[in-house]
């Protein structure tokens, strides 16, 4: 089984972000980490590899070269190799452009299964995976809680608001996973040391045969304006005696007619 895990370096949301003069996010101001949801995709791949000997896991990312430091953790926990599509012209790529580039890179790679996180904490669009599947003309299943492979089909369980369901699709396929995959593994010291010396295979735009627009110059969307959100009314803080606090909450809710 050849599994490709799409990993996106995202700004560590515990930091403070800033915007460039052109209103794109100043990613240099934030230490990149692997999209937390993509880590579940990698975890799902590692679990498949445990049950299917000979499984090879490739990390694929489109990112500035300097974000590699945040992605090498993927090799440290057990991915076999990494491919980075990195090119100054890709800065400012839009969603469609990103999908076009990832699809072109995937056409160059051999794969049976493509896994990724359902969405990312920075863009939060959650649309790139289904775009990639549509470009490659292969099946797509979102919100996977668990993944199995049987008889050349990927079998996915996922929850619905009113229960749960099991879906399956022929390989190759794209599957987007959620946190329900389960606990992540952490790299051990030996893995970290081994990953430290390894570098990803690096492709530029010129190495790919991209169908459709790619890169910042061809972006389909543009940011016009960024401003702080309207401030909510200042917080009333209550502390101290429990009885008094309870009384204050009840009075507050009654005052706003929120008690049925």
């Amino acid at each position, binding site marked *: 089984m050849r599994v490709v895990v799409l990993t996106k370096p995202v700004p560590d949301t515990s930091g403070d972000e800033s915007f460039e003069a052109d209103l794109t996010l100043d990613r240099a101001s934030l230490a990149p980490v692997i999209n937390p949801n993509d880590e579940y995709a990698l975890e799902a791949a590692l679990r498949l590899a445990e049950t299917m000997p000979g499984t090879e896991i490739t990390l694929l990312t489109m990112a500035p070269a300097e974000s590699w430091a945040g992605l090498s953790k993927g090799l440290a926990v057990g991915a076999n190799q990494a491919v980075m599509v990195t090119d100054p012209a890709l800065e400012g790529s839009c969603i469609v452009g990103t999908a076009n580039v990832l699809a072109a890179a995937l056409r160059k790679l051999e794969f049976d299964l493509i896994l990724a996180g359902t969405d990312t904490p920075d863009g939060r*669009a*959650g649309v790139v995976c289904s775009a990639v599947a549509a470009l490659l003309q292969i099946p797509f299943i979102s919100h996977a809680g668990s993944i199995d492979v049987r008889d050349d089909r990927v079998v996915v369980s996922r929850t619905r608001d009113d229960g749960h369901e099991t879906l399956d699709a022929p390989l190759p396929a794209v599957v987007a996973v959620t946190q329900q995959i389960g606990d992540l593994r952490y790299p051990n010291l030996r893995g970290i040391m081994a990953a430290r010396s390894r570098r990803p295979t690096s492709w530029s735009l010129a190495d790919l045969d991209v169908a459709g627009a790619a890169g910042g110059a061809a972006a389909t969307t543009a940011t016009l304006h960024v401003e702080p959100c309207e401030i909510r009314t200042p917080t009333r803080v209550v502390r101290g005696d429990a009885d008094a606090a309870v009384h204050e909450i009840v009075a507050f809710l009654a005052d706003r007619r929120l008690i049925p």
Partner: protein
Amino acid sequence: MNKTVWVIADVSEGGLVSSSPGVATLARELAGDGAAGIIVAANATGAAAELATYVPHIILGRVPADEYFTPSAVAPFIARLVRERRPDYLLVPGTPTGRELAGALSALLQWGVLANATGVSLDERLVVRSVVFRTDLNVRSAFTSDHGIVTVQPHAVGPSVAAVTGDVEEIDVPAAERTSLVRRSELVREEAPAPVEGARVVVAGGAGVGSREAWAVVESLAAVLDGAVGASRPAVDNGWAPYSQQIGQTGKIVRPDLYIALGISGEVQHRVGMRMSKTVVVVDKDPDAPFARFADLFVHADLAEIVPPLIEQLRIAREKGGQS
């Protein structure tokens, strides 16, 4: 010239999903007579009729009832309709179904996507308002061409029916445009808690609740306020609440009149899901929690000391209210 804006509605088992009417209303407000609604589903005549109360024209793509279709599987049909009839913009609800469809259509049409719109305006061009990355920054964005796809944050726009009900055009989706390779082998329905989406009151618990046993107070407080039970991601990861109740970036987006958070610090990933709530009350024992600067009322206290008597006092207040 008037623009045309299509809303691609999200349906389940024949009924419109709750976020669709708001997005349909938005399409009509933007485009007037140029608004249309698209539904692709089996047995969706009722949903189409409901959508027609919001927009002047509906296209209902019919698929066989005995087959399973993912949103991606019917995207080629919608893409072909778009190429033939040339709407300017597509709006889809920012639900899992809508997001999947937006991605597939952006690939097939090579149209841009602006995600998680909290508001949209259309003059010379379409401008999308959203909250990006951190909840304290508003962003306005636009497409660089005359076309694009917008995913609209659920419940960002309230529904309002049109003066005149629209007409419904039914089309059979050709077999070549519904090539679903995804099969469904099992569907199990379970008794689900009250949905958080659309609830007027949401009582959500987080890691600070502490244990599965202690989680009962979250449910009791929700019950006394006739509210739905929500949860932060750590609470769902701990197994105290099902994933369907998760509020935040990877969960549901809610906009209740009252949002009560118990033992939730209010990190950005959570606030994304509830920042549009009208009134926010938080009980947490960390005085430096982000919610201490965001809530309308922040109670710095131990849940175990506050919530049981609060439930009791609210019960008494309800009884008194009922007598008067």
